[in-house]
């Protein structure tokens, strides 16, 4: 008792406790994956199809202007961003499960800050998305994509994938808190992923889009994720918006979305 009062008053200790609890929530999800990794294997099929079928075909027809870069190189980071987005946008489904079972009630009754619950969930989505990075790197090597193996670049990719997936995951949590049923959640998830994906620079450069779509693409966080991924994953590519802007936009998006998700968290228990 004396100890917990102390933790409340000392800001350093409460930050440490916040970080620790966030990591517990994230680790929990990772442990679940370790017990049953089939979901991740199934998730790997879709990006494989995009790269092997769509990527190869459009590389050979030269239909999309990508400058010096072969199309398959151009699209590899885009497909990584896309599959991370898909994993993240449906991760809110676990909230609906947990609410129906009563798991969420137990977490809300524990002395865990709502922000730690939301951030922990979001980060676990980020960790899931990392598995996709591994898949994409393997496929890219097989397909002969010139990759950038600079350790700093790899570290950048790691951080970026987690950051962006955490942002989309938090967005997914918000939807889950608002819609409440599985069917509606799936419907809205499907509805949202396609605009995010197509209104971005994932599979074609923004410059070939009509003006109105360019405006939307510039406001889409996925565009910044792809821009940074392309810069970090491929040698000799310069960022369109600057890595600072890319990371900044994604960090801001994640922070704002996690805060909103944390505010909505208690709604799940009513």
């Amino acid at each position, binding site marked *: 008792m004396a*100890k*917990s009062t102390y*933790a*409340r008053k000392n800001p350093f200790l409460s930050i440490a*406790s916040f970080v*620790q*609890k966030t990591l*517990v929530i994230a680790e*929990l999800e990772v*442990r*679940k994956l370790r*017990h*049953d990794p089939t979901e991740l294997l199934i998730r790997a099929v879709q990006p494989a199809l995009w790269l092997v079928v769509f990527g190869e075909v459009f590389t050979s027809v030269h239909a999309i202007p990508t400058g010096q870069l072969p199309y398959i190189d151009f699209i590899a980071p885009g497909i990584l961003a896309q599959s991370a987005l898909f994993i993240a946008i449906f991760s809110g489904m676990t909230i609906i499960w947990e609410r*129906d*079972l*009563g*798991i969420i*009630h*137990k*977490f*809300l*009754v*524990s*002395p*865990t800050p709502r922000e730690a619950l939301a951030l922990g969930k979001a980060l676990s989505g980020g960790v899931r998305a990392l598995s996709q990075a591994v898949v994409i790197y393997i496929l890219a090597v097989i397909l002969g994509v010139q990759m950038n193996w600079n350790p700093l670049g790899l570290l950048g990719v790691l951080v970026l994938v987690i950051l962006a997936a955490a942002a989309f995951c938090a967005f997914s949590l918000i939807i889950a808190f608002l819609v409440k049923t599985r069917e509606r959640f799936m419907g809205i998830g499907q509805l949202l992923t396609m605009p995010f994906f197509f209104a971005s620079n994932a599979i074609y450069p923004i410059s070939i889009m009509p003006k109105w779509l360019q405006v939307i693409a510039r406001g889409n966080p996925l565009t910044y994720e792809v821009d940074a991924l392309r810069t970090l994953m491929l040698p000799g590519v310069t960022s369109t918006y600057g890595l600072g802007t890319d990371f900044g936009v994604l960090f801001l998006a994640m922070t704002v979305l996690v805060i909103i998700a944390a505010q909505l968290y*208690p709604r799940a*228990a*009513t």
Partner: protein
Amino acid sequence: MAVIETSNLTRRFGNLTAVDKLTMLVEPGDIFGLLGPNGAGKTTVIKMLTTLLRPTSGSALVAGFSITRHPAQVRKSIGYVPQMLSADGSLTGYENLWVFARLYDVPRAEREERAHRALAFMGLEDAADKLVRTYSGGMIRRLEIAQSILHQPTVLFLDEPTIGLDPLARKVVWEHIMQLQERYGTTILMTTHLMEEADQLCHTVAIMHRGKIVANGPPDELKAAIGGRRTTLEDVFVHYTGDVLQDMGESYRETSRTRRTARRLG
């Protein structure tokens, strides 16, 4: 001093008053049963006392802390087992405990020992490293109680602790609840719609009807007050509410939820 003290505690959902100016006391070390049919407001009371739901008006103190002004302190002092099955099936029994040991700030040095002690207390040591989805319904319930006592709470809230369990598993859960109170002196507030359960387990009961407490006291006193030989709590209930126990406003959603819980248990 009472461990739980509510004063005109009220919760409305739109036009429906689920809990209506509830005033009650729960003494330390009591096993207190909140009785009533589905829809009487029991779960709403528990949700307010566990800080999941804000009251519309009125106030309550749990372990000496106000549920509206100091919810963080209340959360540290209580344990809670929701009505639905809430242990995570995709984790092992031990992992389920480990998570809550950390969320409840159990000191690192004590985590493992307390988790194993709680498992042993609930008779689940052999199943500690098995995935919870392989557990029986009674085992899941006991695991959940183990989860909720890791931090040695002052008050433990059990919402329909034996719902969906077969008679044998129900008995085992009852025994564990009684032992918990005897050994650690934990105050237990539970809800049930089974009069037999309340009669066996609870030192004090409160009968809820349409959001209000209509009778409150030890089961024997309540029975004696009505008089007659072989009076059961069920008779007491009918006496005070004029209602039959079954078939009270359970919504479609609740029904499907209960069935789902039952299916998971089966």
